[in-house]
């Protein structure tokens, strides 16, 4: 049981790190000034 819990925690941490990394990468790919771009 403890082994499974530890494995789940590791998996959650990896997924969280990937989420941050992919978010930052998306911002880099789109361009840093995305927030300032107008919709029109």
């Amino acid at each position, binding site marked *: 049981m403890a082994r499974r819990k*530890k*494995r789940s925690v590791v998996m959650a941490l990896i997924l969280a790190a990937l989420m941050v*990394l*992919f978010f930052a*990468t998306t911002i*880099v*790919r789109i361009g840093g000034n995305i927030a300032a771009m107008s919709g029109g």
Partner: protein
Amino acid sequence: MSDLQLNIASDQALGGQGTAGDYFALLKPRVMSLVIFTAFVGIVAAPGTLHPLLALVALLAIAVGAGASGALNMWYDADIDAVMRRTRSRPVPRGAILPGEALGFGAFLAVASVIALGLFVNLVAAALLAFTIFFYVVIYTMWLKRWTPQNIVIGGAAGALPPMIGWAAVTGTIDFGSISLFLIIFMWTPPHFWALALFREDDYAKAGVPMLPNVAGRDETRRQILLYTLVLLPLTFLPALLGVSGILYVTGVALLSAVFLYFAINVYRLREGAAADPACKKLFGFSILWLFLVFALIPVERLLGIASFPSVLP
């Protein structure tokens, strides 16, 4: 048998027993570290620049792709791994991870790494990564490894591709410069693995893997090691001719290659007695250091601002 024992037995049959460490071992971390390093050199050697974050994602995707190949290899080769001394404590033959779990884990990571590289970096790099995984798993593991003593000669292409993927991550192309890095690892693989096979011959024979020493004999293997070394060493200067490296690389490679040749000649010469096995072990050990240092010379040149020679190509 009590209910508790029955539950434990059925739990093991269903899988889910592997720890995070077991799954990490499934990725062949030592192979992965060499892949990360050579891909990094490909990124540094390529003309042009890549945003550091994109370079990090590229390296991560290449590493995970290589790890996926390792997991799929361990799924398919569980029968061989269980027989060989060097591999019998791997997670699948040990029973920590079921073959089906290794297959699912490897297949998922393979697809995810190729998609991530394609979406975040470029399609050429992603296509090369997909080809590398396919080549290692299908061509090498499923076909060549159990069929021909040339297994590691042709299969070595998979291990030689990471610097080309790193290069393509920057340029989006396949160039002569990146092919020269590929060729170095490709020609390095046979003397490296045959030196290992010479002192682990009985292990491979027991598992029924047709390595050169147990098919063509030890003397022929020694001759082939020397021949491949004689082809490899001149090839090592190709990056300098193609405008990828400069004077430090050429000097360093000349010195390192002289030592490599010395060890290869020793393997060829020392065939009997107490010195024979140590000669093979020395070549095997030095070949790893040689590859690391040869590739490290390129980023060191960039760091020191040493200019590359002009390419001989127009």
